[in-house]
């Protein structure tokens, strides 16, 4: 990663926090590519699907974006979250990993590969209450806008936004809840 990436990502994130949705989509896509490069480099043993960790990291970045201080660079923040989620993913599968701290300079952005494998996030999505699940699916997999989703389900746009927000927060929380062993509440749905 270069200083140019840092400057560009920081700028996009600041614009996003100021309410620019297009900047936020841009930020997320670029960040996904950067995180994917980082995660793929780190996973040398099998058992963990890199794309699952990329998705967990993006969700964590989203629900924790209020923890980024605008006067600090954004990439160290992104990498710290990605590293945390990667260690978490290994720990959940009963493995210990040591991840070197400062490898930021050697990471390359990578595009998402086509894959047919079942994603952790789908199982988390299945665990949501039906209302939240259908709204999240409509906006993500089915690619509808907030307005189109409101029309489809015959509810207000505000109600769509609330369901979407709660659904995403619940998915992010379920990823986190698996952190210390797989027997806890809300975990069973993930590992079958």
């Amino acid at each position, binding site marked *: 990663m270069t200083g140019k990436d840092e400057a560009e990502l920081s700028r996009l994130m600041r614009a996003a926090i100021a309410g620019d949705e297009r900047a936020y989509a841009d930020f997320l896509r670029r960040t996904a590519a950067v995180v994917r490069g980082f995660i793929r480099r780190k996973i040398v043993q099998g058992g963990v699907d890199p794309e699952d960790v990329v998705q967990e990291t*993006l*969700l*964590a970045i989203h*629900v*924790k974006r209020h*923890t980024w201080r605008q006067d600090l660079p954004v990439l*160290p923040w992104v990498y710290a979250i990605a590293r945390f989620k990667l260690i978490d993913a290994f720990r959940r599968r009963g493995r210990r990993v040591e991840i070197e701290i400062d490898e930021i300079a050697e990471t390359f952005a990578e595009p998402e590969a086509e894959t047919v494998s079942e994603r952790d996030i789908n199982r988390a999505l299945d665990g949501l209450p039906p209302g939240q699940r259908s709204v999240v699916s409509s906006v993500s997999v089915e690619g509808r806008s907030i307005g189109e989703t409101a029309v489809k389900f015959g509810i207000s746009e505000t109600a769509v*936004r609330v369901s979407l927000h709660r659904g995403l927060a619940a998915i992010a*929380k379920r990823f986190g809840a698996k952190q210390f062993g797989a027997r806890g509440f809300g975990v069973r749905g993930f590992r079958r």
Partner: protein
Amino acid sequence: MRTDDLIKALDADARSTAMPLGSAWWIGAVAATLIAAVMFWLAVGPRTDIATAMYTTRFVAKFVFTIALAISAFALIRALSTPGAATGRAAAWMVAAPLLVAVAVGLELFSVPAADWGRRLVGSNMLICLSFIPLIGIGPLAVFLAVLRYGAPTRPVLAGAVAGLLAGGLAATFYAAHCFDDSPLFVATWYTIAIAILAALGALGGRLFVRW
């Protein structure tokens, strides 16, 4: 769900906003201080001779130790709850309070005859100290753990322990206004144990509750 689909959903949720973590820490600090103050007044209250005690060095020194601990722990926990933030400098400042206590202990040993050391160390109410500092600090600790949960600590157990030190520093600051034992020998022993109890509780809380 492909990652691109997930990004669509996250982007659609872009308008939802949350209070910056820095503000949450200040609100948490104010709330914790109020809780500690209420617990202090309900449980013990200030000592009766506080007006004259305020002019003695040993009494005032207790507040220097506890406030130094609270301030340095507050700076460290803010860094620990922010992913990627530098923690080295804040961690280094954590030695300030123990160092001040160590210097005070040295001065006390120098200025007080050895025959008196034991009496000053044991003091008059160490059990009250050991129970009331954790009692005053437990509410603030819960507040700090809640703010940690709102943040994103990549080392939850360590962050929880620092939350305990912060709650301990705050609780001890109030308790010091009640306690009649002003000798640094007493403070270095019993205050430390009482604060360590809160730090251990904080580490446990970090392990169990601070997940994200």
